[in-house]
């Protein structure tokens, strides 16, 4: 009887230890790190500036996962549970980026005389397609439970659902970008150019205006959360 109990205890201990062992995933992390380094090397040999992209992407994914930073939640939370911590962080990040992008643009461009195509950054035409696309995207990210970056992060975290979302995302992109693109192009996009704020307001006023608007949005988000609490 007693020896049987001891055997049972031993077995249970062993099982417990195995459970603990299986939840220690650092060996896998090391293997992944080695693979990451090897891929970075291979990419570097393929094209030298590729070497930067892979580690930067790793850090982007790592930061997003570690902080649970999520663009979808930054919009969903104020609307559903009334918290704006994440939204404030997104606005703050936009302010910091605005300053960085501004410095780079001013350093790169001949401020008095430049072409839009020379401006470093993402300058794209503005039209009704922006509004329609933005609304569709906003609806999609809320009901799919993740935006473009969020979907990638959740695939990495092991969510099976987000693999399905990713495939649908790709399908939607092909539908619009290959099969329906001539329609949208003829309707709204053709002949339109990007609207670059410094070209309208001047460089310094554009910077100050953008920081002011972001600052107002930040304060508004904070007071919205306070009001919701009461």
């Amino acid at each position: 009887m007693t020896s049987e109990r001891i055997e049972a205890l031993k077995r249970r201990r062993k099982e417990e230890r195995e459970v603990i062992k299986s939840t220690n995933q650092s060996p896998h992390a090391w293997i992944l790190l080695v693979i990451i380094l090897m891929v970075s090397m291979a990419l570097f040999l393929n094209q030298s500036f590729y070497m930067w992209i892979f580690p930067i992407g790793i850090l982007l994914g790592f930061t997003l996962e570690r902080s649970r930073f999520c663009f979808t939640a930054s919009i969903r939370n104020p609307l559903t549970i009334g918290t704006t911590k994440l939204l404030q962080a997104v606005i703050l990040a936009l302010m910091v980026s605005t300053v960085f992008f501004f410095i780079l643009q001013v350093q790169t461009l001949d401020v008095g005389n430049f072409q839009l195509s020379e401006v470093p950054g993402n300058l794209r035409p503005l039209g009704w397609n922006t509004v329609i696309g933005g609304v569709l995207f906003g609806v999609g990210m809320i009901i799919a439970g993740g935006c473009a970056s969020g979907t990638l992060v959740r695939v990495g975290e092991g969510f099976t659902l987000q693999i399905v979302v990713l495939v649908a995302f790709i399908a939607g992109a092909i539908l619009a970008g290959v099969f329906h693109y001539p329609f949208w192009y003829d309707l709204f996009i053709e002949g339109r150019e990007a609207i670059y704020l410094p070209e309208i307001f001047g460089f310094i006023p554009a910077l100050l205006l953008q920081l002011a608007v972001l600052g107002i949005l930040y304060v508004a988000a904070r007071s919205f959360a306070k009001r919701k609490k009461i």
Partner: protein
Amino acid sequence: MNKLYEIVLKTPWPYWIAGIILSLLNIFLLITTGSPWRVTSGFLYWGMGFLEKLGYSDFTGSYIELYGGLTAGETFLLNTVSILNVAVIAGALLSVLISNEFKWKKIKNAKQVAFGITGGLLMGYGAIIAFGCNIGAFFSGIPSFSLHGWVFGGSMVVGGVIGSKILMRYMV
């Protein structure tokens, strides 16, 4: 030292610190590659690579034909944005492995799948016609001082309000 390791690698980082790190990485990306962080065009490249594999290669009038994006020597599989997307997945995986949190999370029900597919399709379609997703148009477009970033952001919030209503009505 061990404590620092615990804090950096095992506990969640505050949102605002993450926001600043993402901003730094984005400007670094713009300096080193000439293009800020983008996501969706990478998905389009993958999709087009898949279409090519299926034997479909008539891309006349497509987004790629008109706005390019691939530089010499780049393919639908191997290009800046696709590499970045794979790296983001791998970075997130590395993070969960280090904190011993990796687990396959199964799909709970058919409703989730239906919402996921619908949401994914809407995001892909919307991002392409609007020139960018929450990253390319919003997170990189606004700091680029391009007005389309602001209009996209505002429209995305309007979509978010509609989406939240749908979510509250049918999901909960």
